[in-house]
């Protein structure tokens, strides 16, 4: 047989013995082989990329198996140097896992027992006309068992394949979400929670809901930061807290002044200790980029620098883990959650009872005007402070639009966000290069001496790096006027007016 598309069926329960043998319309169904039961581990990243694609990633013995509803069952050796996709051996499973972010680690979602059996449907000449491999997965936890049936048709014998499929599906119900059946207590983490919004719900209630949802996201990422699975846990934890802070500071008048101040202080206190670890993560992730910026003769200095970053990161991670497991952090978080979830909620401000829709649209219009005002004043010789101000204004506008997005038809938000994102990319790079230069200068001044010769090697490389980053920053700076001109097109302006119209109450 030539390779034909394989059909994968997810069926509820383990295979029934009687279903594997017998006569099927003049053909014999026989078991041609069985695998002894073995233990398995189901893997996925925190966000459930593999599961969301309808796939199951399973490690058993020395095999890594990906069950894909379209591609069938793909196998490669499980041996790997780490838990990132890049750490897997080159092979078909790694290729098929291209959706998993290179920054995300594969985690153990659950364990259980796997067993296999091969079926063949043969005719009176003993010729195989269709095959099936049944893999039974029995989870160790509260989930239910299921069977993965991989059907393989042989060219010219389509009837037999249909017969075999009908036979297998007649005995067991199909399963739509296999991972959920196996491990119902381990749903994928949602980093962008869907918050149900209503046009006329009060701004206060909506803001409080958004804060509660993001506090929840921040908390769910704690365990991953402590275990140090990957750097995305801290990143998402920080993004969630930043969103909380944005709601508090952008939704003016929703909370009382003292409440706003207290919430700002609380989020600032939660975020401050995370900054250094994140900076180190970002630097270490830029490693390949930095090496590519400099000629090989300057690489020894980078090796020294990254070794020092690595040491500092280990220390910073340990202290972060200690902090997150401590009572002080837990109390601060719990107090904040109790405040937003509590019966009274945060203290209300003068605009608390405004309907959210018109209230938010008004904020967006105001913020949009501000972005345009700052940007239109920027010339090639304008001070960098103004560029930073524009970046912050754009960021606030972006957050506001994203907060209000669930109220708008999905097609309407994209044409507005896309040009904004492009402008932000430009501003973001400009800022990153500036921050990186600052960080390198700080590092040069603050690092412990490592011996005269080594210090010199280090200084040369860092100096060269700063020079390259400075050039790159200048390149980004030169693009800003043009980027803004694209954003400030008549088309985008018109779209802002239609998507965020001035209503009677807005």
């Amino acid at each position, binding site marked *: *047989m*030539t*390779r*034909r598309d394989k059909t994968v069926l997810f069926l509820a329960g383990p295979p029934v013995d009687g279903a594997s043998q017998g006569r099927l319309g003049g053909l014999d169904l026989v078991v041609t082989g069985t695998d002894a039961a073995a233990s398995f581990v189901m893997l996925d990243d925190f966000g459930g990329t593999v599961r969301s694609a309808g796939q199951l990633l399973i490690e058993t013995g020395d095999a890594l198996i990906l069950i894909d509803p379209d591609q069938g069952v793909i196998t490669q050796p499980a041996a790997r140097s780490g838990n990132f996709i890049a750490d897997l051996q080159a092979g078909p499973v790694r290729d098929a896992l291209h959706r998993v972010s290179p920054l995300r680690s594969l985690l153990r979602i659950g364990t259980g027992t796997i067993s296999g059996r091969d079926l063949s449907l043969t*005719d009176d*000449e*003993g*010729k*195989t006309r269709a095959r099936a491999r049944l893999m039974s997965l029995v989870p160790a936890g509260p989930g239910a068992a299921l069977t993965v049936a991989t059907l393989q*048709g*042989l*060219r*010219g*014998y389509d009837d037999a394949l249909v017969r075999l499929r009908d036979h297998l599906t007649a005995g067991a119900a199909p399963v739509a979400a296999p991972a959920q059946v196996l491990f119902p207590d381990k749903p994928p983490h949602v980093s962008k929670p869907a918050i149900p919004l209503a046009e006329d719900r009060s701004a206060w209630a909506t803001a409080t809901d958004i804060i509660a949802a993001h506090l929840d996201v921040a908390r769910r990422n704690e365990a991953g930061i402590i275990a140090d699975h990957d750097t995305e846990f801290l990143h998402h934890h920080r993004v969630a807290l930043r969103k909380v802070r944005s709601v508090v500071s952008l939704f003016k008048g929703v909370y009382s002044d003292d409440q706003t101040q207290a919430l700002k202080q609380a989020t600032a206190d939660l975020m401050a200790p995370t900054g250094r670890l994140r900076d180190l993560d970002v630097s270490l992730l830029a490693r390949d980029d930095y090496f590519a910026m400099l000629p090989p003769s300057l690489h020894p200095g980078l090796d020294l620098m990254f070794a020092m970053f690595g040491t500092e990161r280990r220390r910073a991670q340990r202290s972060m883990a200690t902090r997150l497991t401590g009572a002080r952090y837990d109390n601060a978080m719990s107090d904040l959650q109790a405040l937003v979830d509590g019966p009274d909620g945060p203290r209300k401000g003068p605009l608390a009872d405004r309907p959210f829709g018109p209230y938010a649209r008004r904020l967006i219009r105001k913020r949009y005007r501000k972005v345009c005002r700052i940007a239109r004043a920027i010339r090639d010789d304008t001070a960098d402070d103004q560029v930073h101000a524009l970046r912050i204004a754009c960021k606030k506008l972006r957050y506001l639009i994203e907060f209000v997005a669930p109220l708008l038809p999905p097609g309407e938000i994209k044409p507005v966000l896309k040009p904004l994102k492009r402008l932000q990319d430009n501003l973001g790079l400009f800022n990153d290069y500036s921050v990186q230069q600052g960080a390198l200068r700080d590092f040069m001044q603050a690092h412990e001496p490592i011996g005269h010769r080594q210090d010199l090697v280090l200084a040369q490389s860092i100096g060269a790096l700063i020079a390259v980053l400075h050039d790159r920053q200048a390149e980004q700076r030169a693009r800003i006027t043009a980027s803004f001109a694209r954003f400030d097109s008549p088309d985008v302006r018109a779209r802002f007016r239609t998507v965020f119209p001035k209503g009677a109450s807005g």
Partner: protein
Amino acid sequence: MKIVACYSNKGGVGKTAASVNLAYAFAGGGARVLLCDLDPQGAAGFYFRVKPSQKLENEAFFEDDRQVAKAIRGSDFENLDILPANLSFRDFDVFLSRMKNSRSRLKKALKAVGDDYDVVVLDCPPNLSTLSENVLKAADLIVVPVIPTTLSERTFEQLLDFVGGPDAKDTTARDRIVGFFSMVQRSKLLHADTMARMREAHPDRMLQAVLPFSTDVERMGVNRAPVLDFAPDRPSSQAYRQIHAELTDRLRTG
């Protein structure tokens, strides 16, 4: 798509066994293979337990791509499909004689299904007919099993004369003919002498691999599978593997 024909104008030399095992070996090497049984006796299909094609009758083989595609059956082995024969294939010459371009009909028919395959192996009936001319025209390699006896040597020379002689319509076919010694009995002096003589006469044409006489090949009829499948470590299997390797090499170097 490369076409490899197992062909001899003499019967009983091991063409079908060679087709079956070579098709299996090509598939085992990762190529997508179609074994096309052109012999109305349908032995190649029988070895793979595939029933004769019922709907591919009369001219359909040369005139109806869809019927050819529909008659192809998956074997029990990865990458290997079979186009089984039926008794109406015995009249191929009659159909071909009625058609225009009667010598290139086979190539055309195979091209139509060839996109699915890297290698098409032809198991040919033993004669010198219009169908044979089609085979000689279509194949990238014409693999001829030769039992090292006087009679086989003579038929081999006849074949070379037929394709290379003054009446030949396609003289390039001669360059595409390769032979291998089949059913060799080392103990027979005649076999050794014939092999030595033929190797000298055709130094590049004869493959190095030698297929020994073996009951393993006969047991294919009982096991209904290639020797390479049910007795992979036996000398005949080793010989088929070597023949496959030499052919692969020749296909690569053109």
